[in-house]
């Protein structure tokens, strides 16, 4: 369960301000966040993940108040509970697919990089049909394959929350459907929570809920 209440957030030296009274996402649900650009959809994901701390209000995830945690606690919480999927994949070009997927384990001691983990990577990679691409660098993959690598990295830690920022933004229609099917399947199997920012209204049918930021601001 994710809940945000009485949120007020603004960036330093910027006129942008995000105001949210109440917003919650239940476990096992898939929520699409839509709305025009510049309305704070990505900021919402950053607030949920604890990358940003609101100036006012509370962010609670699985009963824990994220905004009250220290930097290190928030990092650990994010690593162990959340998986990120980005529109531009955010893969490191100098690492091969295997190392990109294992990156969370290489940058934080909280996650233990054990030998058995590579088998787990192979399982998820097989599920995403990229098991034969593990030795390649991202530059040698198609857009759809890159997004599947990014999803593999996000799912490797078995997160209970997936935060996806326009995950299909750079993909062709066929890949869009594939990627969303993978994410939806994961949510169903693991009873996880999916919060996905999207501009693609064709995909909204697959979600349980849709949060329209335009409406939130209009009603406010």
């Amino acid at each position, binding site marked *: 369960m994710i809940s945000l209440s009485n949120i007020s957030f603004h960036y330093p030296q910027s006129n942008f301000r995000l105001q949210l009274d109440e917003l919650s996402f239940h476990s096992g649900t898939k929520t699409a966040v839509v709305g025009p650009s510049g309305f704070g959809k990505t900021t919402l994901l950053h607030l949920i*993940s604890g*990358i940003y701390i609101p100036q006012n209000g509370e962010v609670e995830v699985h009963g824990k108040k994220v905004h009250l945690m220290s*930097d*290190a606690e928030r*990092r*650990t919480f*994010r*690593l162990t509970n959340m998986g*990120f999927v*980005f529109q531009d994949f*955010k*893969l*490191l*070009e*100098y*690492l091969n697919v295997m*190392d990109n997927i294992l*990156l*969370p*384990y*290489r*940058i*934080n001691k*909280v*996650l233990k*990089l054990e030998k058995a983990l590579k088998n787990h990577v192979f399982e998820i990679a097989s599920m995403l049909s990229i098991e034969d691409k593990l030795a390649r*660098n991202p530059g040698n993959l198609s857009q759809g394959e890159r997004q599947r690598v990014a999803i593999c*990295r996000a799912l490797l830690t078995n997160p209970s929350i997936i935060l996806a920022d326009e995950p299909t933004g750079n993909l062709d229609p066929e890949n869009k459907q594939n990627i969303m099917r993978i994410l939806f399947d994961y949510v169903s199997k693991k009873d996880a929570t999916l919060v996905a920012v999207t501009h693609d209204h064709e995909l909204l049918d697959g979600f349980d809920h849709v949060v329209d930021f335009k409406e939130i601001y209009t009603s406010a």
Partner: protein
Amino acid sequence: MRQSLYLAFTYLKFHKVRSLVLIFSIGLILYLPAGLKKLISESEALMLHRAETTPLIIGAKGSSTDLAINTLYFHQESTDPIPKKMLGDVNATGLGYGIPLVSMFKARNFPIVGTDSEYFHFRQLSLAAGRWMGYIGECVIGSEVASDLKISVGDSLVSSPENYFDLAGIYPLKMNVVGVMASSDSPDDKAVFVDVKTNWVIMGLGHGHEDVAQIIDPTIITKRDTNEVQAGAKLRMQNAISVDNLDSFHFHGNMEDYPLNALIFVPKDQKSETIFRGRFASGDLPNQVIVPKEVIDGLLQRIFKIKQLLNAVFLLVGVATFSILSLIFALSIRLRKDEIYTMFTIGSGRWKVAEIILLEMVLLFVGSMVFVGLLYGMTGIFVEKFINTFII
């Protein structure tokens, strides 16, 4: 730390060219002052050793540096000759003995050095193959001459003509290689040693030809009477000396006036050296006598001054290079902001990112130091080249 090291190494490996250029640049800047210091100190040791083991040099008045360099390194810089009779004069002093040296020609770019057997004893040179030269026209070659030209005992070596188009000039002489010297890590390895008379033959002061008393062809013999026989240009000259034609070789004029470049004088003891130098200073003996160590010392002092100037230049270039490298690093971190953002988002802390970037720098530095080590180790190989190119 291990994971950060892995990520840092993988980043550098992926950007191979960039990493190698940085390693090369940092390494070169670190190496230059240290390498130059080693080069100069090893050159100094090598040059001083050669000079210190040569007590005195006698030569024509003029540049003492040229005289020392010519005698020690067979450089063939233009200096006035001294007559051969000088050898007899210095030996007659009873204060030591002289070793003649004459080096004016080359054979396939290696200097031909005319001397006598005392030289080899004095320098403690030994043979790797064959024997020392016994007759004119024979030569003993240094180890590098043998390896570079791929010649050995039984082969021959021809002196290089000074001017191909000067028909009246000096003709090449074919010399028989009778010995190859063992390596001595000195300029002797790069010389072709002959008897001084062989050198005079190359100069044209001595020659061999058909016996004019036996020739009746009037197109060769232009004049014959009881006192003299004159031959024309058609007379066949020998361009090689062998057992068969050795007797036909002869010298014209007074051999005591024949030229030498220098004499190495080996005094019996310190007292003899002092007396001998005194005689030159008082004008009892003509020409000049030099102490090679003093001359080379003076030469090296000038080199050290240049070294100090170069060190200052390297320091400035180093500061400029490291400023540019710092800028490159700063710009590269800005260019990598997406990558750093990804790491933060996924769960990395600021220190972790700093650790990875710091380790990249450490790896580049370590790589540069390995490069410096390699260059430093190789510096010794270039000492002789450095001496020949920049000092003498």
